[in-house]
């Protein structure tokens, strides 16, 4: 292996099984007993967000600055809800794309190479998403280039979608988070729902944002050297004026197509006025001491409480191995009570283990039959493994009229557990990062609780041979948090989408017709997201059943077919194509990556064309009115805000993605929930018939009377 780069990409499961602390990752450190100093020469991140699905491609070049061979430990926390879709490294100047194979087989292949001191790369996931990659050897002064691609669905909170590039999650004190080279991040946002604003709460001064049209926005950041120890947070706001669906598709000529249907609650849904009850459950176990998670949780609860009105009632609990309550009863959210709660929370210290079940059981006892109870859990989800099944069972037994909302704190949260708890409880999960604006998050969360949800939501698709819809059961629709539905379809055809649900006690049923195309190369990312959702559902079924091997074959098939790293499948990078052939590993990922890159290049070319169009509109061609607006904006301040820049381009024509959008008439809260009599056309015609008969009768009577008078 002399002078050759040998990489060991080793996924590390984070020790929630033992209740341990997450070994989350940062960037790069010389490690493995060899010592040495490594520098990041380049760190280039390209993000394309297509209707809420983000594809992040991270390309990094490391350099050994010493005159000796070193081993590098690359640690990388894949962010919440993300699925690693590709890992490549350059061996002998050539990019080697990894393949996903069944986990045990991958391990066997890896071990066989280790015995002959020819190490392949292996990326494993045992639980969730932090992995480490060991690179050895890196020769004196040599460079190593790697590329990681991951997919994720962005969280939407009250119309704001938040993208986090995790840089802050570091538990190893010896990691140097400063880069001497270039760090660049470009973000392209494509959205069928118009983008109204884009901002960065973490790097507002460094980012440059521009919206080329209402449906395409770009942001970029570039720096030479600097501290990369802060999460990079970008949020963009999309507003759908009316409740409706947006569908994007991906369809190759030789296989069935994929679609992603997004259902978004529109602005017409008004807020409910009546107060609600809240029980805030704060995790104060030992794991919350890390990374300021307890402080973040505490501040989030403060922000939640601030947004409560006096018509609301609340209680605060803390838990580790025991549960502590503040009031022992629901109290009106007055200033005085809020102050008491703040004092109570300030006194909390993180220590002990995590036993969540008693806290949730206690919270359920606060349910009043005539009010909605919202149980808000702020935790990193590091609960005891044996308790997880009991928790899921407990959630299923919640009293009617109650919802459980989970707020995951920090980047190394047990997202699957919190997500499943919230979904099973008719609530939803939100995740807070250190760099997030938790006031905004809290207010958005509060608004979401106030907004009327479409409950008992079901979507039926008929026609076009649609099948394998994921998720199979939909949660409630909250305002500002769109729901996504993925599925397959057989051929291009019309499809009827029927939305059934309940809005504030009134039934909703509406059908809209859309047309799915025969060929659509524009959105390849939804193919993997469909498979990823299917894998997540199958794994959730296994968790519920307590059988780790349940659905394993199907999961492995999907993981291998769509290159998804999971608890049952790992990424392996071999030295060359011949090695893949030797192990009879199909180059499915390589084929897909090459195809996707070609498709994505076309999309980038189209975006570039739009950028050029936008640039062409600048300068002398601007009419007086535009020039006047621009000058007025300049006069308003030396550095116009992102919103101002957005406003300047609001009128530009919106390029359409290959999607179909339809509005739905959801009754607003201001006109519903009550009863009324209704005269239908039949009754109306009967009544008008009676009126006609009465008039005719009267005329006839008068005529007869006239004859008598004569």
């Amino acid at each position, binding site marked *: 292996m002399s002078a050759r780069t040998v990489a060991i990409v080793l996924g590390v499961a984070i020790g929630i099984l033992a209740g341990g602390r997450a070994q989350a990752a940062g960037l790069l450190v010389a490690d493995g007993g060899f010592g040495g100093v490594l520098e990041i020469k380049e760190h280039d991140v390209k993000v394309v967000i297509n209707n809420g699905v983000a594809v992040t491609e991270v390309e990094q070049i490391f350099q050994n600055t010493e005159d000796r061979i070193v081993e590098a430990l690359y640690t990388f926390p894949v962010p919440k809800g993300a699925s690693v879709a590709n890992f490549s490294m350059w061996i002998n100047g050539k990019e080697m794309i990894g393949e996903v194979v069944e986990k045990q087989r991958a391990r066997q292949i890896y071990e066989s190479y280790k015995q002959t001191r020819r190490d392949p790369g292996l990326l494993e996931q045992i639980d969730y998403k932090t992995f480490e990659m060991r690179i050895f050897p890196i020769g004196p002064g040599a460079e190593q280039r790697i590329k990681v691609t991951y997919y994720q669905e962005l969280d939407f909170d009250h119309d704001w979608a938040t993208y986090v590039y995790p840089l802050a999650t570091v538990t190893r004190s010896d990691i140097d988070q400063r880069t001497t080279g270039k760090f660049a991040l470009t973000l392209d946002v494509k959205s069928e729902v118009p983008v109204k604003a884009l901002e960065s709460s973490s790097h507002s001064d460094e980012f440059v944002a521009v919206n080329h049209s209402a449906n395409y926005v770009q942001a970029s950041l570039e720096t030479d050297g600097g501290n990369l120890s802060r999460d990079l947070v970008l949020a963009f706001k999309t507003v759908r004026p009316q409740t409706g669906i947006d569908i994007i598709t991906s369809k190759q000529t030789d296989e069935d197509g994929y679609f992603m249907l997004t259902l978004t609650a529109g602005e017409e849904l008004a807020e409910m006025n009546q107060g609600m009850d809240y029980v805030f459950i704060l995790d104060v176990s030992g794991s919350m001491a890390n990374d300021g998670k307890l402080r973040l949780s505490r501040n989030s609860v403060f922000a939640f409480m601030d947004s409560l009105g006096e018509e609301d009632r609340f209680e605060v609990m803390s838990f580790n191995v025991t549960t502590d309550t503040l009031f022992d009863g629901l109290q009106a959210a007055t200033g005085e009570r809020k102050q008491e709660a703040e004092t109570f929370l300030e006194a909390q210290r993180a220590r002990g283990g995590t036993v969540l079940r008693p806290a949730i059981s206690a919270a359920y006892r606060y349910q009043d039959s005539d009010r909605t109870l919202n149980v808000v859990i702020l935790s990193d989800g590091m609960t005891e493994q044996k308790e997880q099944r009991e928790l899921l069972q407990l959630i299923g037994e919640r009293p009617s009229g109650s919802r459980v909302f989970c707020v995951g704190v920090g980047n190394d949260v047990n997202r699957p557990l919190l997500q499943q708890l919230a979904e099973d409880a008719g609530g939803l999960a939100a995740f807070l990062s250190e760099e997030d604006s938790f006031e905004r998050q809290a207010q958005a969360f509060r608004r979401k609780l106030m907004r009327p949800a479409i409950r008992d939501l079901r979507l039926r698709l008929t026609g076009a041979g649609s099948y394998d819809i994921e998720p199979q059961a939909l949660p409630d629709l909250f305002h500002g948090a769109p729901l996504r539905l993925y599925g397959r379809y057989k051929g291009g055809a019309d499809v009827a989408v029927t939305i059934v649900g309940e809005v504030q006690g009134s039934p909703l049923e509406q059908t809209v017709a859309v047309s799915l195309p025969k060929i659509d190369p524009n959105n390849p990312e939804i193919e993997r997201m469909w498979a990823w959702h299917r894998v997540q559902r199958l794994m959730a079924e296994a968790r519920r059943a307590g059988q780790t091997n349940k659905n394993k074959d199907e999961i492995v098939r999907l993981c291998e077919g769509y290159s998804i790293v999971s608890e049952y499948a790992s990424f392996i990078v071999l030295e060359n194509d011949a090695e893949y052939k030797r192990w009879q590993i199909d180059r499915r990922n390589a084929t897909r990556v090459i195809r996707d890159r070609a498709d994505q290049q076309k999309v980038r070319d189209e975006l570039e064309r739009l950028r050029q169009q936008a640039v062409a509109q600048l300068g002398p061609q601007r009419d007086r009115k535009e020039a006047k607006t621009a000058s007025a904006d300049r006069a308003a301040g030396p550095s116009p805000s992102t919103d101002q820049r957005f406003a300047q381009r609001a009128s530009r024509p919106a390029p359409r993605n290959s999607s179909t959008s339809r509005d739905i008439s959801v009754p607003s809260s201001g006109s519903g929930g009550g*009863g009324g009599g209704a005269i239908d056309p039949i009754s109306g015609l009967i*009544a008008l018939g009676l009126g006609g008969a009465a008039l005719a009768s009267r005329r006839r009577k008068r005529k007869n009377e006239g004859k008598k008078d004569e």
Partner: protein
Amino acid sequence: MNLMTKETPMTNIECPRSVEESLRKTIGIRASAFVIPSSFVIPPITLGVAILSLALMCSANLSEILQFDREAVAAGQLWRVVTGHFTHWNLDHLFWDGVVFAVLGVLCERRQRGRFMLCLTAAAVLIPASVWLLLPELNTYRGLSGLDTALFTMLAGSILAEKWAAREWRWVTIIAGLMIGLGSKIAFEVFTQGTMFVDTVTANFQPVPLAHVVGALAGIVVAMLPELRAPAGT
């Protein structure tokens, strides 16, 4: 009946005794070439209710204040018992309710104003009372349709009685047929708890067949009452 052909100087208009008279005079003065038959003039109560219902449709806040609301009524806002009938959930809801009320209201008010007012008052009180007592889960109620049904059965009942007495069997058949038609429609509503041809899902309100049943009964009872006073306008 050739009063309307007289031209009267505008400065000499006397204070009218009724809106109806005022309309006749005003229109007569401005367009002396036309004779406006008295039957064309919309009776004031019907006109008032129609305008009020339309106006309330334009103001969501006023509708909120005037709709039947169980808690508000319990808190002493008794006007909601009556005013709730004049509020509607949306324009679709108002359209047929308003059209039918306008037609039947004009006919009933002109035919027998006293009976008309008694019918409206009885139905306006009995419908919310029955909702209060029999539908405790229903918090709010809006709509003229209960009153429409009351006017229908009152008018049909009156004509039927009249034609029966006059042995005009053809008319009896027609009116009875119309009554059976409406009765069937109400029965359908009662048994299905839904409506025909009205999208209450989109309109987002719960149909209340009870209002039509109570309205229909109130109208029939009023129709069967002995003559209250001399019919107006005849």
